[in-house]
């Protein structure tokens, strides 16, 4: 099921699409967040930031940005 990163319930996720501007995409890419990459959602504040693990590093993402990242829940 495709869902935004901020709403995803599962821990294991795959990034499907990034609905952001050029600037945001560049920022995410340089940290290793791109379409097709597997990520793990570690922490989630409701209407607040999420913390994900990607390529062995932890990254905090604000709510609005997390709403623009579409992911697929993996099992």
């Amino acid at each position, binding site marked *: 099921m495709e869902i935004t990163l901020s709403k995803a319930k599962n821990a294991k996720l795959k990034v499907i699409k990034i609905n952001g501007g050029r600037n945001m995409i*560049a920022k995410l890419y340089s940290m*290793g967040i791109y379409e097709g990459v597997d990520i793990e959602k570690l*922490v989630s*504040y409701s209407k607040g*930031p999420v913390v994900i693990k990607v390529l062995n590093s932890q990254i905090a993402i*604000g709510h609005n*940005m997390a709403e623009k990242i579409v992911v697929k829940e993996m099992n």
Partner: protein
Amino acid sequence: MKIILTGNPNVGKSVVFSYLTGYTAISSNYPGTTVDILGGKTKLAGIDLEVVDVPGVYSLSGESVADRVADEIIKKGDYDLIINVLDANNLERNLFFAFELIEMKRPMIFLVNKCDIAKNRGINIDFKKLEELLGVKVIPIVATAGIGFDLLNNEFKNIVKNINDYIPKISVPDDKLDKWKMIGDVSSKCETIVHKHPTFLEKLEVITTTPVTAVPFAFILIILSFYFIRFIGEGLINYILDPFFNNFYMPIVEKLYSVISPGILRELLFGKSITPLEGFSVLTTGLYVPFVVVLPYIIAFYIVIGILEDIGYLPRLSVILDKFSHRIGLHGYGSIPFILGLGCKVPGIFSLRILETKREKLIAASLMFLSAPCMPQTAMIFAILSKYPVKWTFLFFIFLFSVGVLGAFLFNKIVKGEAQDLFVEIPPYHRPVLKNLLFKLNLRTKNFIKDAVPFVMGGIFFINILDVMNFFDMISKVFAPILNSVFSLPAKISPIIILGFLKKDVSITLLTPFNLGLRETLVSSYFLVTYLPCLASIFVLFKELGKKITVSVIAFNFVFSMFFSWLFSNILLAMGVQ
């Protein structure tokens, strides 16, 4: 030969830089410790080297200030060699920036740092294979322990002779997604990760970031820190410094006092009373205040801050504070200037650069000035309130912080705009290394002694002159109406407010000899902390944000400070505190 030192944020570049140049840079476990570009000189394998420490970035095409600075230095090309530092714990992520460097086709070597931690986490890297796949010389190091630098030193013998051998031979794809594909390929060939059970620190990471547990944890941590600081501070005073001062130092001063004949010289040196804290003698009070009253708290504070910095707690705090920060127009990382400002405003102001918009900088700056006393001030507030129950110290900081938040909230309403989103790497927790803790403690304590002690002594000497010449009454008369009627404070402290402008960070301690009551101490400390930024921070703020913002922050600050000092005083009076 000119070298540039590059890498992702928080890979330990500053430690490598310190090691190479002997320059004492402060290293901490959070991204962006280095904001300014540092340069240093060193000699390796008999060659004179100039080393430039480039701010850590994730990519050459980024939009932040650090990104642009790094991009400019790297693309300018007026250097002979790039030393790129990578974090073994994050090899794959670090390779993206490394690939962008490889595209530059300049001589370079890679240092893979933190190999010890990576090994403990079950990460094994085949360095020979990595070297082969990248076509770049790779040296594994543990910078904090100085391991691997001998290999670097040896390598330099060859670098001087055949520098062109160090130009990477592989070519990397242009497209970012293709780059990631190739990176995945490289790392799968030279890196194996054995899945281990989460370590204690990894479990702690989850506990201290997950909302339900993180918020209580933060509160408990702050309360424990308060008690710990009081405990260490009082212990040092009662068992070491005060006895030493009274039993060893005072007899010498008393002897000196007895041989100098009464007159103006004796009055200038010893004031109206020789007993510490009763008069303004530069030789007794002038030394007792900085070394016995304040220094213990400075040490206690820097122990706590040093440990929190090295574990890497501060970036997690920015996640916890993110939602709250949005209400005052900041994202969680807006709390970083605030936290750094708790150390010293100057690095706090520099770190405003991590915020992207002018609006956020303005809000963060005013929050910092209204509610983040710098470390010497905080230590002095602890010191001056140490004779009262600890709840008054809490109350002081709660009041200070609430007013700061209110100020930022108002600014957020006045200046239109949206808060940016948090996007930041959170480093894993590290076990603090005693050597680094002691190094930082030593450096910071020395800075305090060099910076603050001469001022306190000079200030007390100056007040003593006013005292023995009976100028006190004159100055006090000028300030009496404001101090008395607005803040209900005694006019005798007016010289402190004048001195406070010159060096406000240590001015609070000059209140000690005046024997003020609890309310008087709380209100005058509050006023001294907030009424104006210190000269150094005004200067830096001006340089960083320009005249308009500086003036508006200062004016806003002053009005707020006046009003809330008045309010604070009246609240306390209503509570029956004198």
